[in-house]
């Protein structure tokens, strides 16, 4: 179906999406500093972390949306079934977007062109990638809108983005991402701007699509509750690195990195009502400075001398990694 099989390096047994040692630089700031994660078909990887931790930039780098002069991918690889996207010529890479790998943007209003009707914008995909006629493409676009539960899809297809409510708009955004049945969907905080009931609908929609097509889903979020619900694996990012990675249940049950522990501790709980909310002291580090040692050190309660050296990702269990010298102390309750 897609042209992925014919590209160099294709290996059916390799993971669907694997990112390794990705480095992205924006001017003087090293915003992504060696990210590794992988996700397979039908699975959901949640990428957690605070604003500015490099979650979205990693996603954009995977999609090839980090472009000079604003930013450059300086090292690493992004592989789809073994095909390295970063070494691929731009034209073959362009063909893979939307057909094999697609992205749902955080703010659907700004991600939709205000002067084109939503039906046109979805139909454009079918015309550009599948070579369908204008009429046929429009029919398919209405089907897509129907699939993402837009009521009266045929009529709403002629409406413009500003005429939709926030939740509807995000559905259109998801429609754009799933229209060509990609194998990998990266959802960059798809529910952040929405209220809780709509959030649940959007996530349910993404899950259904994933179940039907066996899509690999990378869900970028800072909503810990959402992660617990839907993710198979989580990758926790801090200052441009994945500091902890593992099965969602295990990471939640026993975090092995002080940052994960602090993040989980900061979730408000009903039984702690009336008490002060837990916070992580300090502020995220300045990424323009030189990288000396563990980036979390200034905010960490476990700091030891060894933290002057940046910790490598250590295997702390089956399929679990944590970038902390003191993970044993953190993991023991």
């Amino acid at each position, binding site marked *: 179906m897609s042209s992925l099989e014919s590209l160099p390096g294709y290996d059916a047994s390799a993971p669907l999406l694997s990112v390794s040692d990705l480095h992205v630089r924006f001017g003087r700031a090293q915003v992504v500093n060696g990210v590794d994660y992988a996700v397979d078909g039908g699975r959901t990887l949640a990428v957690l972390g605070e604003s500015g931790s490099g979650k979205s930039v990693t996603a954009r780098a995977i999609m090839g949306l980090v472009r000079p002069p604003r930013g450059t991918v300086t090292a690493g690889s992004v592989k789809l079934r073994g095909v390295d996207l970063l070494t691929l010529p731009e034209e073959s890479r362009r063909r893979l977007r939307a057909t094999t790998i*697609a992205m749902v943007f955080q703010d659907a209003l700004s991600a939709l*062109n*205000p*002067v*084109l009707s939503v039906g046109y914008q979805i139909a454009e*995909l079918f015309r*550009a990638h599948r070579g369908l006629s204008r009429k046929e493409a429009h029919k398919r676009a209405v089907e897509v809108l129907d699939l993402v539960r837009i*009521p009266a899809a045929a*009529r709403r297809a002629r409406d413009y983005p500003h005429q939709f409510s926030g939740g509807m708009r995000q559905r259109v955004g998801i429609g754009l*991402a799933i229209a060509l049945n990609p194998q990998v969907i990266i959802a960059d905080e798809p529910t952040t701007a929405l209220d809780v009931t709509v959030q649940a609908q959007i996530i349910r929609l993404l899950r259904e699509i994933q179940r039907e097509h066996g899509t690999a889903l990378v869900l970028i979020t800072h909503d810990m509750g959402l992660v617990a619900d839907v993710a198979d694996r989580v990758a926790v990012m801090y200052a441009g690195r994945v500091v902890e990675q593992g099965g969602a249940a295990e990471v939640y049950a026993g975090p092995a990195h002080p940052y994960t522990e602090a993040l989980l501790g900061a979730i408000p709980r009903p039984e702690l009502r009336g008490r002060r909310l837990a916070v992580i002291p300090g502020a995220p580090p300045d990424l323009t400075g030189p990288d000396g040692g563990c980036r979390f050190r200034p905010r960490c309660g476990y700091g030891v001398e060894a933290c002057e050296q940046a910790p490598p990702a250590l295997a702390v269990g089956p399929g679990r990694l944590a970038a902390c010298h003191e993970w044993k102390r953190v993991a023991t309750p």
Partner: protein
Amino acid sequence: MASSTLVSASAEPRHGLWRELLRRPAFAVSSAVALVICAMAAVPQLFAGWFGAGDPRRCALVDSGLPPAPGHPFGFDIQGCDLYSNVVYGARSSVLIALLVTAGMMLIAVVLGGLAGYFRGWADALISRVMDVFFGFPSLVGMIVILQAASTHNELTVSAVLILFGWPALARVMRGSVLAVATSEYVAAARGVGSGTSRILLRHVLPNSFGPVAVLTGLNIGGVIASESALTFLGVGLQTPAISWGVQLNTAQQYFLTAPHLLIFPSIFLTVTVFSFVLLGDALRDAFDPRLR
């Protein structure tokens, strides 16, 4: 249910825009005048014959410089031709030049400004520096020098010179709005669904960044007509066998004291035309700029 109200609401704004425009007296009057001027330019025969004398080239030197007389409401020019029909025919070159210059400037500005704003890098550096050179240069002097050196002086050469010195201001506006649009999320999203560069430029960047340039161009039309007359008046634009308001004013300056009507009637037409185009541009800007609504 909600969707049906939204659909009906969507038809409203365009309707309302028209109605609101027509309700503005400035728009109604200026567009009527502009329409009449354009009609004069397209078919001067229809207007020139109103008072009997229709042919601007049928002249009798006996009548040279005579004031208004029955059948000749504007009098006669220095060659003894009917001034009214000359003024009517004069609209043609003004409107033609206005159209050519506006289209040319807009084309160059959209292409160069768009390329500079979208691709940045060396293309932007080159185009922006060229624009800076034009901004730093006294354009009237430049236009006079070039036209002095030109061997022919017709509508095309005058338009070319006006375009040459007019495009940078528009291109800079275009570059600015393309810069804003090119970094917007929907352009990233378009790229993310595999749109190629040409599709992104034509479908996403251009329609979203065209507005300010279109409005500015509309405001400029009056200025273009005035500059054409100024160049002709200075003697470097269109020249005598040609019929234009600038040429008429240029001739009139020598006979101003003895035959003031030679100066008065063409300048009334010129002023009213320029004024109505400026008002029209203003009204359109007010109507289309969402921040002013």
